[in-house]
């Protein structure tokens, strides 16, 4: 064991001091480039998650996802953003000490034994928007919002996590890559190759998450990038030039046919008119006209009954659900309508969700390889 007696640089000493503050126990998860362990802060007994990122394996040194995640989490301190408690290195690994979180919104949505009240959804939306408003106020784009990256604490607080694709947009007019945001949550302007964007992209994702909370199944599950555009147009109608000026001149524009507009109300039957109104504003085609996080927090939806559930009273995440699923009931009709609106004529291999009865195969997570080449301009 290295101790104070072993000659060491102050920087190494500091690193050692940080490392020794924590224990590392069982593995709890594995991501694209990291292994996550459960651990404890020895002095306080506080439970933590230790995200161990292998660095030695990369020929270009520190991995970009790790760099982004560390850079932004070091600056962002907000109840609805995951807290980075410490960073230290061991051998050739980088260790991020994060607050421990029990589950995520995807688990919650998939757990069909949980019934969501309108007030619960409102609460998750509020927390998502508050975290995001804080990021955007700090000129940081998340660029990978999806239920799986909205983690849930034991006290019910929702936290934005996984900043591996985030970047800042303090300098306006900076060209960015469109290869961000997991497909189902990716806005149409990115699908059409738009390289200049700001907070609007994240807001589209929030709209998809809002819809998913209400439907309990992904709203716009495209099977490929082109199919994603089709899926969006089928659900929301092909945009008119008036609705989204100039979109047909975007770099990767493709025509996918004309789809009529169907009122959101037809699918979101149980939603209040304010909820529908807000959803439509998240899913505005023109990114310039899309609602911002801040505006959304002041939207009438949040000021109408029922009031958002206090986070401590929200449904709790069950880590492993062993209960049998309830049989489908009134959801069937809605589901069929959903299919007709979002899935279109059923194609061969269906992995369309049917309110949870088939396993939804989610699009792969995006990683730095897709992103970096496009942004090093």
């Amino acid at each position, binding site marked *: 064991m290295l101790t104070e007696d072993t000659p060491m*640089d102050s920087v190494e000493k500091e690193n050692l001091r940080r490392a020794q503050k924590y224990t*590392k126990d069982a593995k709890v998860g594995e991501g694209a480039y990291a292994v996550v362990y459960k651990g404890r802060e020895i002095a306080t007994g506080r439970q933590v998650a230790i995200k161990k990122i292998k660095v030695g394996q990369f020929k270009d040194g520190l991995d970009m996802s790790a760099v982004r995640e560390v850079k932004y989490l070091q*600056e962002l301190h907000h109840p609805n953003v995951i807290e980075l408690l410490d960073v230290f290195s061991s*051998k050739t690994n980088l260790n991020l000490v994060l607050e421990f979180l029990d589950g995520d919104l995807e688990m919650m949505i998939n757990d069909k034994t949980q019934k969501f009240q309108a007030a619960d959804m409102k609460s998750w939306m509020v927390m998502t928007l508050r975290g995001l*408003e804080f990021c955007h*106020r700090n000129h940081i784009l998340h660029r990978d919002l999806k239920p799986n990256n909205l983690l849930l604490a034991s006290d019910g607080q929702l936290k934005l996590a996984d900043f591996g694709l985030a970047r800042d947009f303090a300098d306006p007019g900076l060209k960015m890559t469109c290869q961000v945001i997991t497909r189902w949550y990716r806005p149409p302007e990115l699908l059409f190759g738009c390289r200049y964007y700001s907070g609007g992209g994240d807001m589209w994702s929030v709209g998809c998450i809002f819809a998913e909370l209400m439907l309990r199944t992904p709203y716009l599950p495209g099977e490929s990038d082109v199919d994603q555009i089709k899926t969006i147009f089928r659900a929301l109608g092909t945009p008119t030039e008036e609705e989204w000026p100039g979109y047909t001149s975007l770099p990767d524009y493709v025509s996918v046919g004309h789809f009529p507009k169907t009122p959101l109300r037809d699918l979101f039957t149980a939603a209040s008119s304010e909820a529908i109104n807000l959803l439509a504003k998240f899913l505005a085609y023109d990114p310039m006209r899309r609602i911002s996080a801040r505006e959304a927090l002041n939207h009438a939806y*949040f000021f109408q009954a029922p*009031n958002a559930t206090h986070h401590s*009273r929200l449904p709790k995440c069950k880590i492993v659900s062993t209960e049998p699923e309830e049989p489908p009931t009134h959801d069937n009709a809605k589901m069929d309508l959903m299919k007709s609106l979002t899935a279109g004529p059923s194609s061969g291999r269906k992995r369309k969700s049917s309110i949870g009865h088939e396993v939804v195969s989610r699009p792969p997570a995006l990683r730095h390889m897709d992103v970096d080449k496009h942004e090093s301009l």
Partner: protein
Amino acid sequence: MNHIKQEDIKPALVQEEPKDALSLSAATLTTNGKKEVKKEDVDVVKPLVRESDGRKSLWQGSSQYRHWMFSQEMLLKQRTHTNETAVTAIKRAYEAEETGSSNGIEFINAQEEYALVKLYVDKISALCDHFRWTEEVEATAMTYLKRFYLKNTVMDWHPKNVMLTALFLAAKTTNQPISLDAYTSAIPKTSPSDVLDLEFLVAQSLSFEFAVWPAFRAVWGIWLDLQSLPDTRPEAIKDILNAAREHVRTARLTDAEFLYPPSQIAAGAFWLASETLTEQWAKAKGLTASELEPIKEVARMIERENEPGGRINIELVRDVDRRLRLCKNPEKIPGTNAYKRKQAAAEAAANEKRAKKLAAEQQAGSMDVDVFGEKIFIGDVKQEAKPDLGFSSGDED
């Protein structure tokens, strides 16, 4: 610290916690409250937010404000401490090799270290031009290099490779990465390992705090303010903008960023560019005389840099670099006995740790047990006597 409380760099779009739905949910704290809450109610409700919720300015929440700002005295103390600790350790390493061998070595003092580091800070610009990197990369890399030497000594790590590593890392952290091969092949006498071996050490020395608030961005903010002043002609302020940007570049060679927030550095640069306009600006902003004081101090700092004897003191740097070869930490030079001894000690510690871990695993019957604290492997800088591409700190031969 005597900083202005105003928002820095980034325009203050939202100064206060928005009165939003959360204030509302705080109002009721109950599930499914049926009561319709009127907007007026929201205003009187204490929002369910902690002080840390971003109510502080963004600047005050930043790692730069929290960990990298000093008073003049603290900064001097920090550098002196780093330097003296290093000298003690190096003396000990020499003595371990041969008693009396550290006598007569002319160690480098803190001021001399700073002079040498400054030379390499200055060299970053040319490299950024070469790779066509933005000013953000340049400013960030310079900050990294300066921060590195608050915690490390040039006697352990020569600034040339640290500078190259800081720049490579800055390109990544500002989202403009290039491959290591492309980077090192464009720089003479530099191999990928020169950079890779130091990257972890540099990141650690920065406490993994990569975000930097550069003053050049604050320049834009002030420039926009200037345009809205009543009697400013566009032609007049255009020259002023360019002058201010040049002054901010000069400020990067000074300690200004450790002592003043970026907005004050930018304002100091404008002060030098046009005192009258900046005075008008300050008046419009409602700055008091005491708030103007640090701005003038920054201006004086930049001015001193431009005076004869400012910038890089080539004579001194030449001498420092010559002496550096005689007082490098032998523990950091591959091949020396001290180096071998240190490596062996680290290895023994690692072995001991592995044995402990194995024992613990066998005892716990778990494969997941791990203990931190293993010394990270840090390769060594191959310290070249003569760096190339104009990196040389003044070769005497």
